[in-house]
């Protein structure tokens, strides 16, 4: 096979919403992609048998690790956001060392294939692969292990306007600080006073300067500022930095496989879903454009990534789940805390779009478990018995999957380094997750 594979991961990308935005002309790159691509509505629940918890088990760390390993959660070990198996008293966020099975880039490294990984779930600390890894906590933590090789850390920070990574993470930390106190999360919403917030609200909510100024002045708007910071400003800034890093990698690095992960749609889906719900008119008026504008922004990112590819390359767009109205959401006017309100909830199906392969149109019987095996098959790597999915015939290359002897499992040793994340940093990340309803606020 001559081409490369790019896995464009968009958390929460929903088919119904995507189609509507394509029809409205807000997603021209997606539209162009679908004209010549294979696509599938991917069921999600069959990939998480017996898993409960937030969002009915459809939590993003589990699903993205399932996609990257081709295995069920009870094999790769990632089943939630925090790992109770690591600590009963203070379950930490899942780290790269907790993943019990090799992911696509680990297997490709074992077979001398080069990978680029940007912002993918559960990749912190970044660890050695044949290629470059930018961890999912890049910019969120001072831990230097946010990029492998470490020498490139400052390079990606300079893409964001900072002289070094230390300077960048300090600037990001001053955007917002969260105090996780007894009874809930209490963010210091300094983020909503700055230019980034103005830019995000202008871009996604189409707010005027006057409306933005009112946000700063009204004492009663504290909850609103918190919502905006958690569910718009932070994920927008986060996705921007990851996108810039990924673009730099695509433009400068040789690779066989590259993947990037965006979380903006998931965050705004939780915070600003207004359809099918009875919400105050002022809320709807203020935020009704956010999600669709986020789709447009993701579409722009897709366009930029596509522009770096050549004809032989394969582009796989994946989501881990879709979105729907959360009919059990608390009324905005109630005194419920931000983390108790989530207007959108995870739903099926997930999105899969494959451009550049032989097949066109709708494909049935696709599973999240089939992505990794498909990549291995594409590169001529034998399939392991430890996989739970299989390559989809004709999706990535002509013909049936190769008949190569199977092996029991791929060679793999989980990275040994623990994350060096301060209590404040971990609390801030958990506070954001709690604000999405993923964690119980303690």
């Amino acid at each position: 096979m001559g081409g490369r594979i790019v896995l464009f991961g968009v958390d929460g990308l929903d088919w119904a919403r995507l189609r509507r935005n394509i029809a409205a002309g807000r997603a021209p790159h997606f539209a162009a992609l679908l004209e010549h691509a294979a696509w599938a509505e991917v069921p999600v629940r069959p990939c998480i048998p017996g898993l409960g918890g937030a969002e009915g088990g459809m939590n993003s760390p589990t699903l993205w690790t399932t996609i990257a390993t081709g295995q069920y959660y009870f094999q790769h070990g990632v089943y939630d956001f925090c790992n109770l198996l690591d600590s009963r008293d203070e379950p930490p966020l899942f780290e790269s060392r907790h993943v019990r099975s090799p992911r696509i880039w680990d297997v490709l490294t074992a077979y001398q294939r080069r990978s680029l990984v940007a912002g993918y779930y559960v990749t912190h600390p970044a660890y050695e692969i044949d290629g470059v890894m930018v961890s999912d906590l890049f910019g969120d933590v001072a831990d230097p292990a946010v990029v492998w090789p470490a020498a490139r850390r400052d390079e990606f920070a300079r893409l964001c306007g900072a002289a070094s990574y230390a300077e960048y993470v300090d600037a990001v930390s001053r955007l917002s600080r969260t105090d996780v106190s007894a009874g809930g999360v209490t963010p210091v919403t300094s983020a909503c006073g700055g230019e980034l917030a103005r830019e995000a609200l202008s871009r996604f909510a189409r707010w005027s300067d006057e409306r933005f100024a009112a946000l700063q002045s009204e004492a009663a708007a504290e909850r609103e500022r918190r919502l905006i910071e958690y569910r718009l400003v932070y994920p927008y800034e986060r996705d921007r930095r990851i996108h810039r890093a990924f673009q730099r990698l695509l433009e400068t690095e040789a690779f066989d496989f590259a993947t990037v992960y965006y979380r903006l749609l998931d965050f705004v889906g939780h915070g600003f879903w207004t359809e099918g719900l009875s919400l105050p008119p002022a809320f709807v008026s203020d935020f009704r454009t956010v999600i669709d504008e986020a789709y447009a922004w993701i579409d722009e990112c897709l366009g930029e990534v596509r522009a770096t590819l050549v004809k032989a390359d394969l582009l796989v767009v994946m989501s881990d789940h879709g979105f729907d109205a959360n009919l059990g959401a608390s009324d905005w006017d109630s005194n419920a805390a931000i983390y108790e309100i989530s207007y959108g909830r995870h739903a099926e199906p997930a999105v899969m779009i494959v451009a550049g392969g032989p097949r066109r149109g709708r494909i049935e019987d696709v599973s999240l478990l089939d992505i990794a095996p498909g990549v291995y098959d594409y590169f001529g790597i034998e399939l392991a018995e430890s996989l739970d999915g299989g390559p989809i015939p004709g999706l990535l290359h002509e013909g049936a999957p190769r008949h190569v002897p199977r092996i029991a499992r791929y060679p793999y040793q989980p990275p040994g380094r623990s994350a060096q994340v301060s209590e404040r940093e971990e609390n801030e990340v958990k506070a954001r997750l709690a604000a999405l309803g993923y964690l119980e606020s303690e």
Partner: protein
Amino acid sequence: MADVDLEQFEFGSAHRTGRAKGDYQLDRLRRLAEFQLELAAAQRERLTRQERRAREVWLAKLELENLAQPREARIRELESWARELSASKDWLENKVAELEGSMADRRREIGDLLEAKEWLEGRCAELERSVVDRQRVADASELRASGMRAAGEEWKRQLLFRLLRKAGLLRDLDLG
């Protein structure tokens, strides 16, 4: 754990070779069960620790309540003293205010008296000066009067001499 009928569930995707094999299904079911047991054990241990901590907190709370009871009684006693002291303080402050008011009145009275004294002293001084002046006037008058009396006597003596001379009763005497 979400409800799932594991007896009906078929592991593996539709494209997974060997999915239908019993070995594969049994292996995945076993792995799922082992993982769920591992997770359940971890959750049980976490709950146990939380219960233990909750029990410790509860016992500590009881102990603190036992310690707190006499202290609370003492605090109530002190609070009562404090209220009494506060009432005394209020009374004293009122008293002080009264006294200060009285002192202010007294000061005003003293001021008035001082003014009166000054006036009187001034009047006395005026009167003294008047007495002195009158005395002086009186002395001067007395002196004039004595001079006038002396002059009157002399005049009467001269008049008598003139009358006596006119009457020829007296020769021109040397009246010296």
